[in-house]
């Protein structure tokens, strides 16, 4: 079929318009952050004398140094723990047969859709009773539990896609199931595992409600929690400072995204498209 030239141009135009719509709020907040408070920015404006001083001020006033470190600890731990647990579980679901496999898998699938808002209440009150609230553990442990369903689902799909002959051959060589996983399957699994780590890291980094409920100390705030409180205090008095703080919180993920966007997109969809 011949491709109609006019339609071609139209397609590009439509894509360009929507790309601008997608970028506008992000660009707008970045530009705002480059202004000084005294510029009294209204509407869309490109700074005459871009300044990074807002970033430094927001960093110092909002304590974002510790916020970013806390977020890094929480998201890093959750992502790595999830990767280990989900790889093991996905291996079992993907390349072994055992009684109850389907029932267990469906039990785990429930975890893909239920709203974790519904788990926060008992988590808070139980953690309070055992003295875990107001610690990073209160964020790490539940989020491992919440990420495991997606991770397992994802790794199961990977292990089901690897040629069974490989596993078979390794088994005939007398390798144990763990040796098979470690020496035969894992070397191929890294791209899948990386995708999973990146996604879980992003979701955990961006999480807000759990931190809001669990954390009281200033020094334990995650970046999004610190940002929400900072914005509540400074939004009207100094929009440029708030914008700078928002950019600081979003930047780490956006940088990772720029480099690994294929993984992001593939993972987001595969998580949902499969079965």
């Amino acid at each position, binding site marked *: 079929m011949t491709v*109609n030239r006019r339609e071609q141009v*139209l*397609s590009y135009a439509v*894509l360009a318009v*929507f790309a601008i*719509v*997608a*970028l506008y*709020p*992000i660009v*707008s*907040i970045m530009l705002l952050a480059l202004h000084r408070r005294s510029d009294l920015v209204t*509407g*869309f404006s490109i700074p005459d004398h871009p300044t990074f001083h807002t970033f430094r001020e927001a960093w110092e006033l909002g304590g974002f140094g510790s916020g970013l470190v806390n977020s890094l600890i929480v998201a890093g731990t959750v992502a790595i723990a999830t990767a280990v647990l989900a790889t*093991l*579980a996905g291996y079992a679901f*993907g*390349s*072994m047969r*055992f*009684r109850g*496999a389907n029932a267990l898998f*469906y039990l785990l699938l429930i975890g893909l*859709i*239920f*709203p974790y808002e*519904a*788990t*926060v*209440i008992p988590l*808070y*009150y139980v953690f309070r009773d055992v003295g875990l609230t107001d610690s990073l553990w209160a964020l790490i442990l*539940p989020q*491992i*539990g*919440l990420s*495991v*369903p997606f991770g*397992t689902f994802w790794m199961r799909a990977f292990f089901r*896609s690897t040629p*069974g*002959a*490989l*596993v078979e051959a390794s088994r005939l060589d007398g390798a144990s*199931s763990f040796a098979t996983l470690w020496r035969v399957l894992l070397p191929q699994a890294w791209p*899948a595992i990386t995708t999973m780590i990146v996604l879980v890291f992003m979701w955990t980094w*961006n999480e807000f409600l759990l931190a*809001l*409920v669990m954390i009281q100390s200033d020094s334990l705030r995650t970046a*999004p929690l610190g940002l929400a409180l900072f*914005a509540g205090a400074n*939004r009207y008095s100094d929009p440029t400072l*708030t*914008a700078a703080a928002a950019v600081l*919180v979003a930047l780490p993920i956006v940088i990772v*995204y720029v480099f690994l*966007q294929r993984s992001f997109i593939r993972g987001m*969809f595969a998580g949902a*498209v499969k*079965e």
Partner: protein
Amino acid sequence: MSVSTPAGVGDTGHPAGARAPAGVTEAPRLKVNIRAPGEPRRVAYLYLAPALLFYLVFAFGPLIYTTWLSFFKWDGITVGTWVGLDNYNQVLSDPAIRSSFVHSLVLIVFYALLPCALGLFIASIMVHSRVRGVGFFRAVLFLPQTIATVVVAIAWVWIYGQNGPINEGLRAIGLGGLARSWLGDFNLALPAVGLVGTWVMFGLCMVLFIAGIQKIPTSLYEAARVDGAGRWREFLAVTLPSLRGELAVALTLTTIFALRTFDLVYVATSGGPGSSTTVPSWLVYQNAFAVGRVGLAAAVAVVLTIIIFAVAFLITRIVDRDPTT
């Protein structure tokens, strides 16, 4: 990358592309494949145990516990009293709670229906084009998905603000009379919040559908053309049925996201002005942690969970029923 296509070659005895209906994959039923690669039976539980433990203790268990709490009147401090279904009665009868669920429905229009309609429209425009640079557009359109909702909320509070770009734009074209604090307006705050959801979600829908149309064989369109189908018939007969799977995924993801809205409301409006943007998760948070009505909060959470399950189930059902492909 073979990751996203798991069916096929060395599949451990599952019929290729099977949707794994319950109870089909029990080992004893296999004739040929007895020594399938899926080697030892028992050791599997060992591999599963750690993941299941975390899931049950920190996710599934709390969900059950929430259900238990929903039968109590409890302030979070003293001893609770069993009240049976009282909390659920209140969820159904309290106008403030009911309206929060109605707000959720409005948000579904903005988060799910609007982005999907937009995505389908654009996909149908692009059916006959072979666009280069899809990778670039995909990355850009997908960007809103990666940004923390707290950050998104802050950006939009600025955009909607008294001196924000929207109002300045209106003033610049002489429509300054329309300028207002969009998130402070009783009638417009909820649609304004909804449009932020549209912004977050439309790229995801577009990316999904554009990927989908590229998999539709052109022969289907040629056949439609031979039959004398116009653009609209072609859309109904070829494009829409072929995108059924993608549509189901997009609707499920966006609807669940709409129903779970919390961060955006917390940062952008705190449920206000008045109670015009309250949503169920906001009420869960308020009741459980601010005003000490833990049982009621739990009941709201349970109802929300049930609705989410029902929606996910329904969407899958509706989409699976159509046998055309």
